[in-house]
């Protein structure tokens, strides 16, 4: 829907004006004639399903990829960045959807990579660390800036990314799902910064799947679908339902139904489980068909607990009892044999082999099962792929490299690969990170279905509504300790938060 006042908007001082941007990848038209205007002092929210082309559009704006066709003007001048470096020089910076930090370098160096303050040609570490500490504090992160970034939690890394973008002093700042890994408090801190910079005249593009944030930060809203711009609004004009409908082209009902009533049989019992340096003294039981939520602040040790249950980093104290028998879970293979699987929070590093095709990824845990007399049957792989793609609505060709799928579809693939295993316990670590509303509901439905079939489900999520909506009981962790195990009726937002900050 091109706006009528194109000419006026191309005038200097108005910001970034994009017209008719088009980009195709083998087999997909990722962008198909998209227009976008980013005005100074304004936040342009871009919404859309997974794979709608949002990240692709942003990569074009920030010089990562060139468009196949279309034009861009910045302050009335033609703008055609051939590298991120040129885009930055022109004042356009971006926080990427996927973590873009060098794990081995310190927080400060990551922030100032390629732009370190120097004195007589040498990096001035004192100055760099001082400046980094200031910026990091501004985003609400309390961390020693000389630590390697790889040692930080995912959330902290996300905040480092935000700090990095802020340090660029950009005039146009593109944020591609910046809050996907953040908790409520960290997110709010980011919004305050956005408010502040907006009032100083910075123009934003903001991508999110959390519709509640739209109200909080957005000035204008653009919805994309299948590589096209399909709707736009001023914030005042729009209700969430309308947004959802524009995105997925149908109405989506996002209320949680009551969780399944679990059986009495105990599937999994965890007794005083701990791993040095991560968490201690965690005890709970999981019954057949039960959904157990795990809540806590970022860095509380939830991921560590999940990884210990799955044997990725085995626990070093306590017991895990499966079906009344103590189980020795020393590796993921052990856990899978015991019927426990994990959908990890970092799908790129732990969930999918990005260079491998979608169907090969999904077949990975089932290779032996797919073999007939020791030979993997192509037809069976294809058939399994089709079934799962239908079940979870995975958009992507079976032969497409997993790394080229959109973020949400990657998440669905990371879940799908476990389904043929018929697991008895599924641990979801941040299952809806970066997933669009439609897919979110699909994942919720899947969790409900699993529990109804008698599977025990553990859901870890930083979105409290998600935990409270899905779970029958909620385990709260704080600083690696168990501070509560609440039944559904006592698990209110306030109580969980109180427990999460205690201890």
């Amino acid at each position: 829907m091109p706006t009528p006042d194109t000419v006026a908007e191309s005038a200097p001082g108005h910001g970034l004006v994009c017209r008719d941007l088009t980009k195709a990848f083998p087999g997909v038209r990722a962008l198909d004639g998209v227009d976008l205007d980013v005005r100074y002092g304004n936040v342009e929210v871009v919404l859309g399903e997974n794979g709608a082309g949002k990240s692709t559009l942003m990569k074009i704006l920030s010089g990562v990829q060139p468009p196949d066709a279309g034009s861009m003007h910045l302050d009335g001048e033609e703008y055609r960045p051939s590298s991120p470096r040129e885009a930055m020089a022109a004042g356009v910076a971006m926080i990427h959807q996927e973590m873009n930090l060098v794990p081995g370098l310190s927080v400060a160096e990551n922030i100032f990579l390629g732009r370190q303050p120097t004195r007589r040609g040498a990096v001035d570490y004192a100055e760099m660390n001082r400046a980094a500490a200031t910026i990091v504090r501004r985003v609400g992160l309390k961390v020693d800036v000389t630590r390697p970034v790889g040692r930080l939690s995912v959330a902290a890394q996300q905040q480092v990314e935000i700090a990095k973008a802020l340090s660029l002093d950009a005039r146009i700042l593109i944020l591609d799902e910046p809050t996907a890994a953040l908790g409520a408090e960290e997110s709010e801190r980011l919004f305050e910064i956005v408010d502040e910079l907006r009032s100083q005249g910075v123009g934003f593009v903001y991508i999110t799947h959390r519709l509640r944030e739209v109200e909080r930060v957005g000035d204008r809203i653009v919805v994309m679908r299948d590589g096209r711009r399909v709707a736009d609004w001023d914030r005042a004009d729009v209700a969430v339902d309308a947004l959802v409908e524009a995105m997925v082209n149908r109405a989506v009902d996002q209320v949680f139904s009551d969780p399944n009533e679990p059986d009495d049989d105990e599937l999994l019992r965890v007794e005083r489980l701990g791993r040095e340096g991560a968490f201690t003294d965690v005890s709970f039981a999981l019954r057949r068909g039960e959904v157990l939520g795990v809540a806590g602040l970022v860095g509380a040790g939830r991921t560590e607990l999940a990884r210990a249950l799955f044997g990725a980093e085995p626990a070093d104290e306590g017991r895990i009892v499966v079906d009344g028998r103590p189980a020795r879970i020393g590796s993921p293979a052990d856990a899978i044999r015991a019927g426990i699987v994990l959908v990890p929070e970092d799908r790129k590093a732990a969930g999918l082999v990005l260079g491998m095709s979608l169907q090969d990824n999904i077949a990975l845990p089932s290779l032996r099962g797919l073999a007939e007399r020791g030979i993997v049957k192509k037809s069976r792989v294809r058939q399994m792929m089709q079934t799962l793609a239908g079940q979870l609505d995975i958009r992507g060709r079976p032969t497409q490299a997993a790394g080229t799928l959109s973020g949400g579809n990657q998440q669905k693939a990371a879940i799908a690969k476990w389904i043929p295993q018929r697991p008895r316990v599924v641990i979801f670590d941040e299952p809806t990170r970066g997933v669009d509303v439609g897919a979110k509901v699909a994942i919720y439905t899947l969790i409900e279905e699993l529990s109804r079939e008698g599977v025990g489900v553990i859901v870890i999520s930083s979105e409290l509504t998600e935990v409270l909506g899905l779970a029958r009981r909620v385990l709260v962790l704080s600083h690696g300790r168990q501070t509560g195990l609440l039944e559904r009726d006592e698990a209110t937002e306030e109580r969980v938060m109180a427990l999460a900050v205690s201890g």
Partner: protein
Amino acid sequence: MSATTQDQETQAREAERPSWNRFFERFGSSGPLVGLLVLVVVLSFLSPAFLTVNNMVNVFQQISVLAILALGMTAVIITAGIDLSVGSIVGLSGVVAGWTFVEAGLPMPVAFLAGLAVGALAGFISGLMITVGKLPPFIATLAMLSMARGLALVISDGQPISGYPDWFRNITRYQLFGVLPLSVLLVVVLFLLGAAYLRYRPSGRALYAIGGNEEVARLSGLKVQREKLKVYTAAGALAGLGGLILLSRLDSAQPTAGAGLELDVIAAVVIGGASLAGGRGSVSGTLVGALIIGFLRNGLNLLDVSAFWQQVIIGAVIAIAVMTDTLRRRSKH
């Protein structure tokens, strides 16, 4: 992007492509195959002796050891590893077999098994250093390169070990139907088995995942360490087999046999489209890579190119062959 992906993406567009192109794709990566054909055509024009049955048989026979080593190396490289010790193992296995027969006086089949076993054992130890000792494959197999060569020299006291039964020597000399040497037949059989393994066996498929992202493979329940151990052991055993073939060809166990061969082997695998970063590679591509190296060396000899210039030319052709393939692949995206 993995070979699989590549392959499959290709399949998706298969219908649009001319069929000869599809044939290439099916055979392996088309880049190196085109390179091989160009090389063969050019050499045929330059030297009348080149495209003769006799010479073709020669080249196949000449690359048989290289090809067998490259088969194991393909699996190793798919897992994102490398094995620098294969050349040394060729020497060690020959010497051990020779010593067992000539010095220990045991029957030839026992000697043969001893050579094979010592190769597998060396590979197994490299594998242990990598999986249990957490050494980078480059370092573990560099250490094995040095140790295996040292042991070959110690066992043989630096002397060649000679004196084998005629039938043993004739194994590599015998030509089925008068044209097909047994060693070439062996290469063909091993490559078919290797291709089937990588393509159809669950543990073969697992190697691509391990090379693509080891952590994901582990978290998918694959026994990463065990698969790696198997791969290095197999590469060692194949190098041992290579040593035995060479023993039969030279009719003498040379402690220095195979020195420096590892670089040719790795080059063959990479020319064949495998990526040293892991997750990509195919047995058919490796065969093409080995043939390119074999034809190149053979052709330069036939053309009587000076030995010094040969090195320059071989370096240049390897670079150009791989570059054409990488650039072509890139431009497709």
